[in-house]
């Protein structure tokens, strides 16, 4: 039996037509996109914000973390990456599912997935958004 699922934080991501997407804010005044979404534009301060989503991007940079940091609940090692989403001209940082840096290439296709990050103290699987390399032909 699998554990009950708990979302890391509401408002960061959702499943849409069986596809995981990140939820961004997009400013209707200056066109700037930002993640996570918030009520005021990060560039111009306007409150004219619409929600948009992204799921497919290109790998910009990445690293592998092998040392513990304060409050971290992830198993070591874990990957981190920045992925570009050209549709909304935004680069987003997050956990990468690939922990071997050597296997990654700049500019390769990445997609957003929702996956287990860690098991919480109450035995629930906490899920978050992660970036996953897109395998060829899929």
């Amino acid at each position, binding site marked *: 039996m699998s554990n009950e699922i708990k979302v*890391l*934080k509401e408002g*960061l991501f959702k499943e849409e037509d069986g596809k995981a997407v990140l939820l*961004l804010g997009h400013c209707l005044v200056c066109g*700037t*996109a*930002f*993640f*996570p979404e918030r009520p005021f534009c*990060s*560039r111009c301060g306007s409150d004219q914000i619409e929600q948009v989503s992204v799921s497919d991007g290109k790998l*910009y*940079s*990445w*690293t*592998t*973390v*092998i*040392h513990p*940091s*304060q*409050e*971290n*609940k*992830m198993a070591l090692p*874990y990957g*981190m*990456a*920045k992925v*570009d989403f*050209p549709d909304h*001209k*935004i*680069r*987003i*940082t*997050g*956990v990468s599912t690939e922990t071997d*840096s050597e296997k990654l290439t*700049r500019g390769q296709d990445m997609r957003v997935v929702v996956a287990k*990050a*860690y098991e919480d103290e109450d035995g629930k699987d*906490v899920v*978050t958004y992660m970036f996953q390399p897109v395998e060829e032909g899929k």
Partner: protein
Amino acid sequence: MREVVIAGVGIHPFGRFPDKDYRDLGREATLMALKDANIPWNDIQVAYVGNVMAEMTKGHQVLQYFGQTGIPIINVENACTSGSVGMWAAMNSIQNGQYDLALVLGVEKAPKGMIANCGYDRWQMYTGTGANPAHFAMQTKETMWEHGLDKSHLAYISILNHRNGVKNPYAMYQKECTAEEVLNSPMVCDPLTLLMLCAPNEGAAAAVIGTKEAVAKYTSKYVTIAALAFLTKTPADSIFPDFSVPIGTDLVNITTRVSALAYETAGIGPDDLSLIEMQDTDSGSQIRDMVQAGLIKPGDVARALADGDIAPTGRIPVNVSGGLLSKGEPLGASSMGQVVELTWQLRGDAGPRQVPGAKAGAGHTLGAAGNSCFIILKN
């Protein structure tokens, strides 16, 4: 606006001092600065104290020991720029005519290991994405791609700063290292190894500043603050805890903006500097920041490093003090450490580290949440 000068400086070595309290570190640097300026504590009219991690009213705890003179004491916390932001506020209050003499102190007792409480949200910390070295590592990769560099260039920065630190009795590591040692030291986050990252540690540094008229009554060996610029980030700067940045924006990065503001205010450009102290949080950051501050042209990095442009005898000596890689980083004190080094250099008091004939020197700091300061001193 009134011209502001540095009357005297003081420092407590950067390192680890288990038997000392932050008060001890701060008081030692303060006393040395007061003595160097030949100005008694009773004549100081306002004090700014930069610190990140100590308790409530830390500046008061350090300074009231010298006498409860009733002056305003302001505690400043702006991450790694805490000291220079204190300096900026003190300078403004003197320029504006509110005070004639001020003390600025930076003091820190930071524990070993990754720095906690950097402004990340809990969801970022729980998923391990609040690990600062991971962000530095990704930025370093981006810098390497942008300028066509490899690991040997990262190692060079560590080797050079450690070699410079050998001549600095106030540095934590006064020991040279080889390329093999740098590249074979434990991997922290690829491509950054342990010897490519600075270590959070303990220390203090202080300066007494004032109008030229007020200071001249006590000492004749002052140096002038030609400019001190302080700015915060825009969305274009990929600085934690932010997790997104717009691509292809026309916004200019923070180091270019803050250095340009200082160059313009001082009427001193990057080509006029005799030396610069930069925030080498890691080897990659120093390379990126040297380009963004206009010291090395974007296509010229590999050549500049190979030709020793930034070595103590080169075109623009960078981190002749040893930088944070050899000194360690006592967060609230590190930028005031730069001010101490620059003041000594411009007075000709830097001993074996002296850059001959130094006339103008700069210090650059960059901190969490996008704080950046750029100071230019001249003699």
